[in-house]
């Protein structure tokens, strides 16, 4: 089946700053896909390129089957983009905004009015529809923003950091909305810096770091790539820390000299943990406390981006 989004070697620089250094992606139709990365990784540039707002320097991308450079118009008709900044008119009411988007999508006056009412209802904004958007709370105007993007019934929806800046309750509400959206067969491509968000919403995740995809897969696959379990060690002093880190070598996935903690990858079995402890701490004095836990996406992210930076 044809992919909803296909990206090969996407490259983009602004002046001398290389923001995207060869991004490759493939998103299946009807799925939820998350592009995960910290600020400056290139998430927004990727999304804007796929939404045809930015022209890539090199590489190819097709969205909904159309090339983002050559068939811009057709891509635009099939997608919607919702970003972090206000893309609705604050001086207009919610209803007026949706009606305007409807008209711009080619609906008749009556059709636009009907669609606006339908979307307001669906996004729980029916009462607020008559009020100016400037009076909406953060969660409300993001829902309106999302609704505005859906007026044209797009097949691919781009969400750029949909919950950044929202409080916990609004974030959970937004997650529910996004999950329901995906259920209806639309492809959802979202960018986020929140690992929990990627983990709970997305079927597949791509880790973006330094303008490239450093890892890709389902959340479980990513966690597995960097060993399913972790042995967290808290060491008694700086000398022990130095010694243990030396002995662990490449098995230390993450270490924090300030806190005197080291994390080692392990398969979680008692035999391996015991063997590891005996190896790094024969005198039984260097390790103060230890914990064995399942690896989280946090760990995967840190490990994979650290590895990338170290050139591994």
């Amino acid at each position: 089946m044809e992919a909803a989004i296909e990206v090969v070697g996407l490259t983009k620089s602004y002046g001398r700053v290389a923001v995207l250094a060869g991004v490759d992606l493939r998103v299946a139709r009807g799925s939820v896909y998350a592009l995960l990365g910290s600020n400056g990784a290139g998430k927004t540039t990727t999304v804007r390129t796929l939404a045809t707002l930015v022209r890539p320097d090199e590489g190819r991308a097709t969205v909904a089957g159309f090339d983002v450079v050559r068939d811009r118009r057709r891509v635009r008709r099939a997608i919607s983009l919702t970003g972090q900044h206000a893309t609705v008119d604050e001086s207009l009411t919610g209803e007026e905004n949706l009606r305007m988007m409807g008209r711009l999508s080619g609906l008749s006056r009556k059709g636009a009015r009907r669609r606006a009412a339908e979307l307001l209802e669906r996004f729980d904004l029916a009462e607020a529809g008559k009020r100016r958007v400037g009076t909406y709370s953060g969660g409300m105007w993001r829902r309106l923003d999302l609704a505005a993007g859906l007026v044209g019934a797009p097949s691919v929806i781009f969400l750029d950091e949909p919950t950044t800046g929202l409080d916990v309750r609004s974030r959970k509400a937004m997650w529910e909305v996004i999950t329901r959206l995906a259920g209806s067969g639309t492809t959802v491509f979202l960018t986020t810096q929140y690992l929990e968000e990627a983990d709970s919403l997305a079927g597949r995740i791509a880790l973006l770091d330094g303008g490239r995809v450093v890892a890709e897969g389902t959340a479980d696959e990513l966690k597995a790539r960097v060993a399913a379990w972790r042995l967290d060690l808290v060491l008694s002093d700086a000398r022990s820390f130095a010694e243990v880190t030396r002995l662990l070598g490449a098995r230390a996935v993450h270490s924090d000299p300030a806190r005197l903690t080291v994390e080692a990858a392990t398969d979680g079995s008692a035999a391996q943990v015991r063997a590891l402890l005996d190896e790094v701490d024969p005198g039984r004095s260097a390790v103060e406390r230890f914990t064995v836990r399942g690896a989280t996406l946090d760990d995967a992210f840190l490990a994979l981006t650290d590895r990338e930076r170290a050139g591994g």
Partner: protein
Amino acid sequence: MSELVAWPVMTGRAVRLSLRNLDALLTSFLLPVMVMLLFVYLFGGAIQTGTDYVTYAVPGVLVMCASYGASLTAVAVSQDMSRGIVDRFRSMGVGAGAFLGGHVAAGTVRNLASLVIVFVVAFLLGFRAEADLQGWAGAAGVLVVFVVAVSAVSAVAGLLARTPEAAGGFTFVVLFLPYPSSAFVPVHTMPRWLHGFAENQPATPIIESVRGLLLDRPVGSDPWKALAWCGGFLLVSAALSGRLFRDRAR
């Protein structure tokens, strides 16, 4: 998305936004009215123009109202560009033509309304036009073309300005442009070094055309000069707007 469908929608939007932005709306005609009152009542007695000062000054005030009102388009465009809404329009296929055209059209409508208000106040102050129907039509025509041309230039200024405040600075410059001309005082009363500018700047032929047409006096080649200036503004704006609109994408 056809520009023909998008343009009326964008115009409707720009008009609605103007109506909701009450203080800008009020300023756009209160300001020229205040200036007119200032000149007619405070300064008019001391300025020799050979005629009733009100008769002399009103055409200049009308042109000033037109140009100031049109320049507010720069702020409207700049406000849009500084927010994400333009991205949404672009991703829906709305091009520079419909987007800027909407602002220009709305600005023209707004401007015509304020010109009518200013004219009514002028009438109350004693201004009497001597024109026949042709003269009225001519004066109205020159003003409308002028408004559209300045709106177009303002739209480009709005695209160039980095912030809406900078666009506001542009309106300030436009506000002062009519002064070094024959708008409020005869040019020969100004210092010699100013004559060249005052006689040849774009506001002058427009003011002289409106004055001549409204007061049924010979206008010579001024209307043609006025149209030439406006045509030039429109051409340059049209040429620059497409590229600037695309380049301003964040």
